[in-house]
């Protein structure tokens, strides 16, 4: 009896094993993700990465994450806050999430996708195409420039390697000098790689596949970066400025409004201009009195674009850094209807900026061209951007050409591109901001932020490399340690 039972049990159990073995053969197939692809073309990665970059650079709509609108645009005194002045940026105190979200979204939504595009389009990769490579290099440089100009030293050479052959999940920081050299080399390489009229790309929501405009963007961005690092790396920077400005056939740059690196928005949820999304839902901002006063002083018609008149038709700005109560007493102009259009473009770089760089290079004696004429062209280009015409006598209202008058005009022309305006103000110290309003209080020891602090996540997750980064920064991780190009 016992033996039969045992045999029977054995049979049943071994039968079960066979049954299970048969089932498990389908396991591998069953565990293939039916929701998400594992293979993809660069054309599908490009639009999201471009959109994220433009979004973070120009606007961004999530509260406590708006580096441009709440921090930079207020710090350069284009905008001022009329409420929550002391907690959301205007008085130099920013929510920690501005740093953490800018950091995370730029690395995780923008840069990693540009890196993947480079991987997928490399010469021996499945989507080999030098034009995708060039686009990846240019956008990666734009995004890294944005991050390093905001934070200082950041992971660059070691970054974006989380899934690389030799994976790095805690990347080391590079100094800004290294990062700038890397970006300028990448932009030069992109200019070389671009092939116009062949190797078409798609998914290009910035230039609709027009590779000449990408080429112009590569060189224009190289001008921006070379000009920025001019004080620290004069020889290399001057060589780049001269090379690009003197050979437009090999190094075309933005020359007209049609060239602009700007993202065109449409009136569809998620694809609207983020300034529209922000300014149409809340009324927490006015135009800063610093900008309004400057525009009124020069009788500058661009005021009609940047600002809305008050009920009596006049313009009035709101001083920065007031208490909420004091701000509440002042009836000030709000941002112009131009920016309240869902279709208003997000601007990454303009031909106006290229002209200002050229005028600055001429003024510095790097180019033997007429700085006054170049300066006037730059201002005229800024007016034209808004469909306005610069009055003939406008340059004469500005006094003698100097770095101060040039940077003041560049500051006005960068309205909307708050981070770029802030970076240029940090680089040159110009234009000088007026003394604070008597009722204003600024934290950060009253110092215009020189940078923003590293995200708290780096303290938790990448501490030893962060410490290396802070030592490369050359000062404590505060908003008062100056960055490399401003020293």
């Amino acid at each position, binding site marked *: 009896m016992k033996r039969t039972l045992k045999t029977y049990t054995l049979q049943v159990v071994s039968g079960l094993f066979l049954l299970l073995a048969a089932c*498990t053969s389908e396991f591998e197939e069953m565990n293939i993700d039916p929701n998400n692809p594992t293979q993809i073309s660069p054309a599908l990665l490009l639009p999201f990465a471009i*959109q994220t970059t433009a979004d973070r650079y120009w606007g961004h709509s999530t509260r406590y994450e708006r580096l441009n609108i709440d921090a930079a645009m207020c710090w350069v005194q284009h905008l001022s806050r009329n409420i929550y002045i002391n907690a959301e940026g205007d008085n130099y105190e920013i929510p920690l999430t501005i740093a953490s979200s800018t950091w995370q979204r730029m690395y995780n939504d923008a*840069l990693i*996708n540009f890196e993947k595009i480079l991987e997928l389009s490399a010469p021996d990769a499945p989507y080999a195409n030098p034009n995708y490579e060039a686009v990846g290099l240019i956008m990666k440089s734009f995004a890294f420039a944005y991050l390093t100009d905001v934070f200082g030293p950041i992971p660059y050479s070691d970054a*974006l390697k989380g*899934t690389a052959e030799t994976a790095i999940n805690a990347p080391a920081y590079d100094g800004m000098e290294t990062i700038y050299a890397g970006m300028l080399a990448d932009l030069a390489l992109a200019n070389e790689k671009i092939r116009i009229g062949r190797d078409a790309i798609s998914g290009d929501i910035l230039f609709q596949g027009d590779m000449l405009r990408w080429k112009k963007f590569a060189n224009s961005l190289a001008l921006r970066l070379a000009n920025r690092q001019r004080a620290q790396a004069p020889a290399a920077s001057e060589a780049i400025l001269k090379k690009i400005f003197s050979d437009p056939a090999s190094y075309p740059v933005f020359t007209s409004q049609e060239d602009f690196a700007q993202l065109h928005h449409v009136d569809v949820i998620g*694809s609207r201009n983020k300034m529209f999304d922000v*300014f149409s839902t809340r009324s927490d901002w006015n135009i800063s009195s610093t900008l309004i006063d400057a525009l009124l002083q020069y009788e500058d018609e661009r005021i009609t674009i940047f600002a809305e008149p008050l009920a009596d038709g006049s313009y009035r700005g709101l001083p920065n850094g007031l*208490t909420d109560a004091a701000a509440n007493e002042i009836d000030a102009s709000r941002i112009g209807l131009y920016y309240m259009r869902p279709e208003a473009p997000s601007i990454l770089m303009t031909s106006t900026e290229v002209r200002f760089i050229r005028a600055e290079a001429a003024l510095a004696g790097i180019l033997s061209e007429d700085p006054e004429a170049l300066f006037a062209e730059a201002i005229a280009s800024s007016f034209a951007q808004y469909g306005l015409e610069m009055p003939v006598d406008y340059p004469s209202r500005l006094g003698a050409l100097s770095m101060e008058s040039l940077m003041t005009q560049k500051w006005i022309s960068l309205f909307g591109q708050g981070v770029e305006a802030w970076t240029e103000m940090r680089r040159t110290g110009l234009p000088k901001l007026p003394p604070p309003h008597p009722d204003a209080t600024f934290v950060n020891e009253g110092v215009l932020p020189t940078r923003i602090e590293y995200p708290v996540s780096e303290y938790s*997750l990448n501490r030893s490399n962060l410490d290396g980064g802070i030592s490369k920064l050359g000062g404590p991780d505060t908003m008062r340690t100056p960055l490399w190009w401003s020293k």
Partner: protein
Amino acid sequence: MYNNDYFRNNYKLNTSYKFTDNLQVTVSAEYVKSGSDNRRFTSSSDFIWAHRHTDYNKLKDWRSYYAIQRETFRPGDDYPYANWQHEYFSNPFFLQDVYTNANDKDRLLGNIALNYKISEHFSVMLRSGTDFWSDTRRDVTGVEFTKNNVKRFGSYRETVISSQETNSDVILTFDKDLSSSLSLRVQGGAINRVNNFKRNSVLVGELTIDGLYNLGNFASPVVPSSMIRQQVVNSVFGAATIGINNALFIDVTGRNDWSSTLPVQANSFFYPSVAVSAVLTDMFDFNTRILSFAKVRASIAQVGNDADPYMLNQVYRAQGLWAGTTPMYSESNAIANRNLKPEITTGKEVGLDLRFLQGRIGVDLTYYHQSTVNQILAVSISNASGYASQTLNAGQITNQGVEIMLSGTPVALPNGFSWETQLNFARNRNQVVALAEGLDNYILGVQNSLTSEARVGQPYGTLYGRRYQRSPDGQIIYRNGLPQLDEGTHAIGNIQPDWIGGFSNTFRYKRLALSTLIDVKMGGDIFDVGTGLARKTGQLAETAFGREEGLIGQGVMNIGTIENPVFVPNDVIVDATTFWNNQNPRTYHEAGIFDGSFVKLREVALSYTFPKAFLGNRYIQSMRLSVVGRNLAFLHRNHPHIDPEVDMKGGNAQGFASGEMPSTRNIGFNLNVSF
């Protein structure tokens, strides 16, 4: 709760039929229909942002005031409801009226089991059961309004979820007393578990006709999404229990699983267990008048676990359409792991159960130590890697603790009065012993950049964030009357309680019973953004002080230099708004750290059991009426405002709060009737 409901109906059938003396078939089925027109109150954070002067009766009766208030809307604005202001705060009653979360759920459970007795000691059971449900949810996320001359449309999301889990198993059992002192029970079998899950969701971002919640009613492209999950686990197992003299028991088990979610070369994992328990008083026959029962138990048990589906391959994720025309994808923020291994937890436990004076006093002690090797975790990594998290097999994570239970019946009188009491104490400690090459920190939760972390070798659940600068003697350093922040982040709290406990008492007298339960949690910090923000906004009583004349923060200020500080008491007056803003926990994390200790009167219940005579018929077996009160009172807490028993995020991310609805006290009646 205003405009909030829920219903559930159960229909259940259980039937069993004996075909022969040896063959029995049991079939059960249950159908559950549940649903709601509005499942919950979606918090408007009233306790943070509402003004003190807000008249909630008027807000509730907003329809009566709408026409009047509409006249006062700013030019270019129009809202479909009355509110005390429209920029910063929405009328919570309107939200609850219109922003509804409805659902409609059908659930079917079915089970069929076949028992066949092969011989006196040997039987086989074949069983299959399934749990299927389908849930349709409709969440209103927006209504039409106009602000700054811009018209916003209504919006809603419709989601259909279906889920099915089917378990089929076969179990052979051999059960025999081998001799008068030796009993044996052996089981062996196999299990097949299949899980299928699907969620389809459509967001209508702009409705053509406001208030008409139909997927066809869209004014711009809708956003559909879909998620499918499928998973199969096959197992074989064996178990044996040996009983010696009915006093010493030995349990041995072994089980092997094959899971579809793991890499093929690593999808099989075996986990055994051994448990021994001995009733010492019986084995050695020393049961005395004082010590009436003594039992020791010890066990070592392993449990294996697989991963969630689809964690092995790096994927790209859909990001919708740009401009309604261009499809967008992006690299997933999580790093997949094609070399994932099963996780194995080894638990060791020893326990002692002593009873004295014929069971009038009892003591139960337990010590446990669990160690999980290869735990499958998505660990946060530096974003600069290009990714936010990495799926890995964590080196080793332990969890150990003690539990002590004292029970007793101090009073048991012949007249029927008795008092039973029970005291519980437990202390548990988690620790990350090793994570992975190059990684030494597991982030449990994040709020406003404050993190709850389990660093390797450090206490689990330490809160890292911004803290105030303090003088050597620990006082907050003020500058210009305001507290200053230290650079970087620091440990400013820990979520783990020192201990938790309970104290329950039951008093009986004849047919009456009164029971009470007190719950205790001692220690453990919470990061409560809500209370800090409500101070910043001036909602809380303590912010009234100094509102007119300003106030002086308690601490010191440095009148020396940074290198050679000289600290004197702070004497700088600042206005209250500025002062409380520097307690804003979004930036000043330390201001949001509160002690989470509490002692609560959790439950008091009074019940009466009706006498048989009263029931007076043969259909009703018993009847009991009780009054039960839950969450009745705080006997102690250190938090000045909220119930510190909050859990904003769930899971590992314990210890966070941000303006949650307060916990509720409730009193109810229960009538239990058995037929």
